[in-house]
């Protein structure tokens, strides 16, 4: 019975309930922060205990922690904490601008906590059925967050998000059923047949024909949530129309979580089918996503859509890395997950304040941020430079590993990857540079913007580019070994 897991899961769940009651009060934002901090502390304790005495299985085997999901839990807890810190002034400013009422804020705060809960549940769940349920629940909570402003655009985005993801996730359920069916023949009826810890043990005995079809459904299902082309169409809309903190967590965390689920399934599929099958599929999807997203980038006029597409690109890159497999590639994939979620959320923080300063999300109307508020300007600029994979930021480290591995193992893919990276660089930088530099169109804000999170994230990413702490590297290695 490990109290860490219970706290990690319980804190946001309780928080969701509490904020559903008091979420409209003046101090709600602080409560939100406090809960997130508590969650993060619990996650830290969890990490400590995992480091101390290995994997933990708890709550009637339904939940477990190993080195693969523990750092994702820590990451999720951390980013959701910083996002909560960011959302305090942001949402207050939105309220002052009259875009939100107290009631909406209550909905926002409560749903935010519940959303964090669902993500942590996906990460910690041992039972693949629960993984599915939690993913679906994550969709439901975020749908409400995306449509928070109730503008036509936000409703449209939320509707597409709901339908597309709902349908997609449904496919994942079918996949899970098939998986269960395959597992039953070895583990017998009952929930053991869905426990990852058990499945991983017998994965080589799972029935290949069933697993082949099951993986297809799982890939389509969770891939929709990851935002793999051509299943990605909900993603830009949802990112662009929701409140910025939500975009930050969607892009920074939810995609990671879905990808995590996919990776777990891939491990089973590999066990049953041998390497190439699942790998090929994932590499194909990853490559297509990278290339297509890169070409989409240059047509964007809305800054949040722009970075949404860049998320698709990076998710594609990570999927490609996991597809290649092997210690280095998986290591790189995990590292890229980390740095991407840190960087992308930082960018969204900066973008959010930029949009508030200029009162628009249209790129051509945001100009010369650096003159009015150097911090926001530099935050956005540095974040962009980082996300574009320019050293010495950490994104480059992982991209370096991915590309170099690709050069060795999939030489055919490297030209596409490099071309896509070049195009993406040209597009994104060409759009961000005038936003940051030049004559300004921005104005002051009623409340001081929250920039500690931005620079904290950027600093972390910078550090990871130059120095990866040994125990972190050890984690990654362990996790990479699990993924294989």
């Amino acid at each position, binding site marked *: 019975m490990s109290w860490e897991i219970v706290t990690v899961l319980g804190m946001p769940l309780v928080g969701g309930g509490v904020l559903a009651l008091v979420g409209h009060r003046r101090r709600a934002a602080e409560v939100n922060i406090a809960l997130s901090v508590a969650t993060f502390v619990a996650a830290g304790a969890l990490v400590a205990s995992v480091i101390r005495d290995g994997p933990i299985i708890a709550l009637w085997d339904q939940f477990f922690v190993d080195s693969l999901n523990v750092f994702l839990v820590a990451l999720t807890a951390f980013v959701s904490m910083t996002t909560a810190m960011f959302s305090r002034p942001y949402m207050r400013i939105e309220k002052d601008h009259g875009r939100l009422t107290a009631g909406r804020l209550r909905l926002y705060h409560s749903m935010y906590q519940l959303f964090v809960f669902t993500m942590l549940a996906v990460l910690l769940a041992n*039972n693949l*059925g*629960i993984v*599915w*349920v939690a993913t679906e*629940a994550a969709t439901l909570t975020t749908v409400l967050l995306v449509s928070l402003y109730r503008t036509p*655009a936000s409703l449209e985005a939320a509707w597409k998000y*709901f339908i597309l993801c709902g349908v997609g996730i*449904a496919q994942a359920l079918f996949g899970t059923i098939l998986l269960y*069916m395959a597992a039953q023949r070895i583990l017998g009826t009952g929930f053991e047949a869905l426990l990852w810890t058990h499945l991983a043990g017998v994965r080589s005995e799972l029935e290949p024909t069933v697993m082949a079809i099951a993986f297809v459904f799982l890939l389509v299902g969770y891939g929709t949530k990851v935002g793999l082309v051509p299943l990605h169409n909900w993603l830009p809309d949802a990112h662009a129309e929701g409140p910025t903190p939500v975009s930050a967590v969607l892009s920074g965390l939810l995609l990671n979580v879905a990808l995590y689920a996919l990776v777990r399934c891939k491990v089973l599929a590999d066990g049953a089918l041998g390497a190439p099958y699942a790998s090929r599929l994932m590499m194909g999807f990853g490559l297509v996503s990278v290339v297509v997203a890169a070409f989409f980038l240059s047509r964007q006029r809305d800054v949040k859509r722009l970075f949404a597409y860049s998320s698709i690109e990076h998710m594609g890159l990570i999927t490609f890395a996991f597809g290649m497999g092997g210690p280095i590639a998986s290591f790189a994939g995990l590292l890229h997950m980390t740095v991407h979620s840190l960087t992308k959320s930082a960018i969204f923080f900066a973008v959010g304040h930029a949009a508030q300063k200029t009162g628009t999300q249209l790129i051509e109307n945001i100009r010369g941020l650096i003159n009015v508020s150097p911090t926001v300007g530099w935050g956005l600029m540095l974040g962009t430079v980082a996300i574009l994979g320019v050293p010495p930021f950490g994104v480059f480290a992982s991209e370096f590993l991915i590309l170099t591995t690709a050069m060795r193992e999939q030489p055919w893919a490297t030209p596409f990857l490099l071309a896509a990276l070049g195009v993406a660089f040209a597009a994104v930088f060409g759009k961000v540079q005038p936003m940051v530099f030049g004559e300004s169109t921005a104005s002051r804000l009623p409340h001081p913007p929250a920039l500690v999170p931005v620079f904290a994230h950027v600093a972390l990413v910078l550090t990871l580019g130059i120095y990866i702490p040994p125990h972190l590297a050890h984690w990654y290695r362990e996790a990479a070994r699990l993924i294989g």
Partner: protein
Amino acid sequence: MTELLSAALVGQIINMLASVLLLLSFAMLAQRRILSLIDLFAAQGFVLMLSTAFVGWATGQVHLYVSAAITLGLKVLFLPWVLHRLIRRLNVKWDVETLINIPTTLLVGIVLVILAFNVAQPVSQLAGTVTRGTLGIALAAVLLAFLMMITRSKAVPQVIGFLAMENSLFFAATAATYGMPMVVELGIALDVLVGIIILAVFFFQIRERFDSLDIRHLEKLKE
């Protein structure tokens, strides 16, 4: 109790229910009027409930009764009632317009069924259950529901398609594996419940923003 009925007969009965389910899916695909669409959905739920209960009785899996009960409550009674109320509240009595005309849709549906059987055939060989043959039908139903969502241009029918897909998945679960573990079943049911509530909220919001539930208004966001 199984000795009352031979395994073969159980199989036949389940297959019969399954084919009824498939038939209903086709009917929904072809249905033009929204109210009868809702009734068809309810009927599908009913068949689902029957099959679940029967499988539970035939194989002595107690928890299947529970899920049958959930199905009855949720998919046969509650959801249709909610949908009917919605229709009345939003007083939308329009006929369902399809993006592709009905006959074409049906032809495509046939192709999908063939494909589904093709895909499911090797798998169902391995299924250790008496209900193995029905996996293909479940898959076919899923695909048909998918097709229905694609072809319907109004919000409500699309949602009904979504729920139909949920139904067929549920059927797949019972048919192929005697139902998922209880905790998962409950979770799924909860999700469906919450989902439909959120959707109901959405309908009103969409309505008040676009004064129509035609999703062809929802095409502003592109590229």
